[in-house]
C-alpha cells in the first residue's frame, strides 16, 4: 500500500515536470501572458550605389615580376577609369595579398586527378578593385545600366576580370566554398540610418494594429507593451540576397561601410524591420465582468 502511494506520487511529479517546463519556455518566448505579435515594417527603396568588384592580379615565378605585372594591371585600369571622367565614381582597393599560386594548367590537373607536372612554384599578387558609383537614386535605369556597361567595357579592355580571378575560383571549388558568396556587381542601399527609423516606426505600428485586432476578437483590452524583440533588421545580417556563380567565394569584407542592403537586381530593394512585441492584457473592469 505504501509502495503504491509512492509510485502514484512519482508519476504525478514526472507528469507535471514537463508541463511546467513547457509553460516556462512559453513564458520565455513572451507568449504565456498577454498578446505576442510580430510587427513588420517594410520600405521599398531604390539603391543609391552600385559596386563592381574587379580582380587584379600578377602571376609569375619571380615575385618581382608578379609585382610589376600587378602594378601595371592596376595602373592601366585606373588610368582607363580616369578617362571616363565619372564624377560619382570612387575606387577602393581591398584584399591586397601575395600568395603561392598555380598555373591554370596545373589547376586543371589537380581537379582532374591527373599526374602533376614538375612545375616551378608561382607567386600571385592580387587584390580586388572595388568600383563604387554613388548617388544613383533617381537616375533612369537605362542610363545607369549604360554607365555600368561602360565600366565593364573598360575593365575588359584592360584585361581585368569581373569577380574572382581564375585561381581564386578554382581554389574555392577545391575547398567546396559554395556559401558566403558575394555578387561581383551589386546594387546597394547604403544610407540606411533614416530609412531604418521609418521601418521601425512602421513595424511598431504594425505590431500594435495586430495586437489590437487580436484583443478585439478575444474581447479583451490591450495593455501596455511588455517586451520587444528584434527579429530582423535590414543591414544587420549578411547582405547576399541572390545566389552567385557556382564556386565563387566572398571577396574581402567591406571596410567600415556601416549597415547596408544589396541586391543583384536594379529594382526597389526591401528595407525591413521585423519585431516580436508582447502586450499586456488589461484586467477586466469588475462592472463589465458582472454584466
Amino acid at each position, binding site marked *: 500500500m505504501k509502495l503504491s502511494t509512492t509510485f502514484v506520487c512519482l508519476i504525478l511529479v514526472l507528469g507535471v515536470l514537463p508541463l511546467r517546463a513547457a509553460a516556462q519556455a512559453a513564458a520565455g518566448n513572451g507568449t504565456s501572458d498577454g498578446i505576442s505579435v510580430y510587427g513588420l515594417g517594410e520600405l521599398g527603396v531604390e539603391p543609391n550605389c552600385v559596386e563592381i568588384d574587379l580582380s587584379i592580379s600578377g*602571376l*609569375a615565378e619571380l*615575385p618581382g615580376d608578379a609585382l*610589376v605585372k600587378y602594378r*601595371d594591371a592596376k595602373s592601366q585600369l585606373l588610368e582607363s577609369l580616369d578617362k571616363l571622367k565619372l564624377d560619382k565614381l570612387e575606387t577602393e582597393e581591398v584584399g591586397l595579398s601575395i600568395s603561392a599560386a598555380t598555373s591554370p594548367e596545373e589547376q586543371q590537373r589537380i581537379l582532374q586527378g591527373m599526374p602533376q607536372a*614538375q612545375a616551378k612554384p608561382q607567386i600571385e599578387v592580387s587584390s580586388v578593385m572595388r568600383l563604387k558609383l554613388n548617388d544613383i537614386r533617381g537616375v533612369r535605369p537605362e542610363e545607369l545600366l549604360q554607365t555600368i556597361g561602360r565600366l565593364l567595357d573598360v575593365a575588359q579592355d584592360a584585361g581585368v576580370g569581373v569577380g574572382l580571378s581564375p585561381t581564386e575560383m578554382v581554389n574555392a571549388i577545391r575547398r567546396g566554398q559554395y556559401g558566403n558568396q558575394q555578387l561581383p556587381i551589386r546594387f546597394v542601399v547604403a544610407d540606411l540610418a533614416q530609412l531604418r527609423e521609418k521601418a521601425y516606426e512602421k513595424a511598431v505600428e504594425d505590431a500594435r494594429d495586430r495586437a489590437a485586432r487580436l484583443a478585439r476578437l478575444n474581447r479583451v483590452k490591450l495593455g501596455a507593451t511588455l517586451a520587444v524583440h528584434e527579429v530582423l533588421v535590414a543591414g544587420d545580417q549578411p547582405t547576399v540576397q541572390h545566389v552567385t556563380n557556382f564556386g565563387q567565394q566572398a571577396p574581402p569584407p567591406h571596410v567600415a561601410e556601416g549597415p547596408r542592403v544589396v541586391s543583384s537586381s536594379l529594382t526597389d530593394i526591401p528595407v525591413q524591420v521585423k519585431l516580436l512585441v508582447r502586450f499586456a492584457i488589461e484586467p477586466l473592469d469588475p462592472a463589465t465582468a458582472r454584466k
Partner: protein
Amino acid sequence: MAADWAFTTSVSRETPKASFSLSSQTAELRDSLDQFQRMVKHEQWEAAFDTLKEISKKSTQRYIDRGDGVLIPTQDLVRSLHADLPAEGRKAYRLFYDPQATTLWESATGAKELENLSAIVSQHLISSVGDAAADRLGDLYFERGEFENAAAAWQAIADDCPDSTIPKAQTLVKIATALARAGHWNQFRQVEARVDEEHRDETVEIGGSTLAAAGQIDRLRESAREVETATSDAAVEDVALPTDAEPSWRFSFQSTLGKRAASNPFQLTDVYGRPRANTFPIPAAADDQRVYVCLFGVEMAFDLSTGKLAWRTGKLHLINFQQARQGINPERYAIAAHEGRVWVVGRDPDQANQRGAFRLTVLDAATGKEIFSSERSLGSWSILGAPLIRRDTAYVGAQRHGKGRELSLLVLDAADGKLKKTIDVGDYAVDQNQVYVDACAQPTLAWRGDRLYLDTHAGALASIDPENGDLDWAVLYESPSPTAGHHYNYQPHQSTCTGPIFADGLLMAKGMRSPRLVGISVDGPQLVWNRPVANSAVLLGADDQCVYLGGEELTAYDLENKKLVWATQLPRAADWSRPLLTANRIYQFTSRGICEVDKKNGELIQIFRGADLDALGGSMFVTPKSLVTVSNEGIVAYALGDAGPPTPGN
C-alpha cells in the same frame, strides 16, 4: 620604369629538364675522360693520347656538356684538352703525332686541301704544323665566304696554340675581319678591345699588304656603325589604324547554306566526339596582292583589293570531311608566301588516316597551280613546322613516317623540292603524333651569318652549319613534356612556336612550353640569359632596348639588366593570336578588336574594334594598302591611307 623589387635573373645552370635529346655524352665517354685526366696527372702521355684517340673515334656524332650547360661536339672538347696539356705533354704529343700531322700537311693540296687541313685542326692542332694548318684553313673558308668557319679556324690558333709563331695581332685582325663580315658585332667588340689594349701599334700582313692593326680595326668598326644604323632604320613603320570600322571587304568562313552555328563555322570534334572550341589556328599569309589561308588542306587565295576568291585547291566539302576527323592537328598546318610562291604544310584533304603524313606543297601564288610537293619526292617523310626559305634553298623540319619522336632537318632545292641533304637533329621525349590535348612541338628556324639556328621547342636549341650539316653546338633549356594521351576535361593553353630571334647580338629563344627565356651569345657559345617567364609567353621581337614577349599578356624585358620593364594585360585573345611589332607600337588582334600598345611603356593607346566582332582574335597582316585580319570567323580587310606602311613581313 623598371621596378627595383628583389628578383633574380642570374644565369643558373642546373641540368635543365628538356623533353628533347641530342646524341649526347654517354657514361662510357665520361669514364674515358676521367681516365685521360689520370694519365695526364701521372705523365703517362702515350696512354693519355690513346684514350683521347679512342674518344674521338667512338663519338664523332656525340655531344658533351662542356660544363656550363652548352653541348659541344666531342671533337671540340678533345681539341681543348690537347691545348690544356702542360708543356711536357705538348712536347710528347709532337713526338708521337708530328709525323702524321706533317704527312697530312704536305698532302694538303687540290681537292684534299680542305679535308686534310680540317683533319689537322680537329685532331692535331698542337702539332708543329697545327697553327699553320688552322691559319690556311681560315684563309680557305674566308675565300669561300664561310666567315664563321674562318673565324673559328683562326680563333683556334688564338685559343689553343700558345706556342704558335704566327703574330697574335695578325690572327686577331683576321678574326675581327671574319666576325665583321659575318655580322657578329658582339664578339667583334671583344677582339677589338684586345687589339686596342695589346697590339695597337703593331702591323699586320693582310692580302699581301702591310697594315696597321689599329687602322684595320677602325675601318671594320666603321662598317659596324653603318650596319647598326641600317638595322635600326629597317624597323617597320607604325600603322595608322583605320578610323572607320567598315571593312573594304570580308569573307566569312561560315557557309550561308547549312548554317549551324553563327559563331562556329568549323564544327571540329575532339577524340571523344565532342565539339571543339572554335579557337584553333587558321594558317594565313599575305603578300602585296593576295591573302592566303590553309583550311585543313584546302588552300584559298583572295584578291587583296576586291576580296574575290582568286583560286582554291580543293573542294569545300573536303574541309567538312577533315573537320569530322577526330585527332586532327590544326596547329601543324602552315602557309607562307615567298617571292611569288605559296609554301604550304598540310595533309591531303582526301585522306582519312588518323596519322596521315603532312606534306610540303609549293603553289604558284597567282594561279594556285602546284609547282612541287613532297608527297611525291619525299614520301617517307612527314613535315613538321614551317619552312625557312633562303635564296635557292628551303629548310624544313621533318620526321620519318611512323617515327614520331625523331626530328630531322631537310635541306631542299627551293626550285624543285629535291632533297639536298638530311640533317638528323635528335629525338623528342614524346611521339609528336600522340600529342592530342596539348599542341605538338614544331621546330622553328632562324638564319644569321652563315649559320642556321633551330629551336626544337622541346628544350634544345642548336646551331647548324648548313653547308656540311654538322651541329656546331646545342643548348638545353627547361621544357616540360607535353601531355600524351587523352584526358576528358583537360584543356590546356595551346602554345604556339615562335622565334628564335636575334636581340642585341644574342640568340633569344623561348620554347613553346618552356618557363624560360634563354639568350645565347653564339660566339663561344655562352648562355647569357636563362630567365623565368610565363610558360605561355611567345617571342615577338626586339629592338635596341627590350625584348618583347606576347601570349596571355604583353611583356618587355630590358636587354641590359634583364628586368621586366612593363607588363600589359589585354582583352582575351585566341591562343594563336600573334602581335605585330613595329618601330614604336605593338598591335594585337583580340576578342575586343585590335589593341595598339606603346612599346615604350606598355600603355594601351587605343582599340580599333573593327568589323569581326565575333572573333576571339587571330593573325593580322599589313600591306601597303590594307590591314587584314584573319580569325576563326573569317577574313576582314580594311583600307589603309595612301601613306600606308611597308610590308612588315608578318
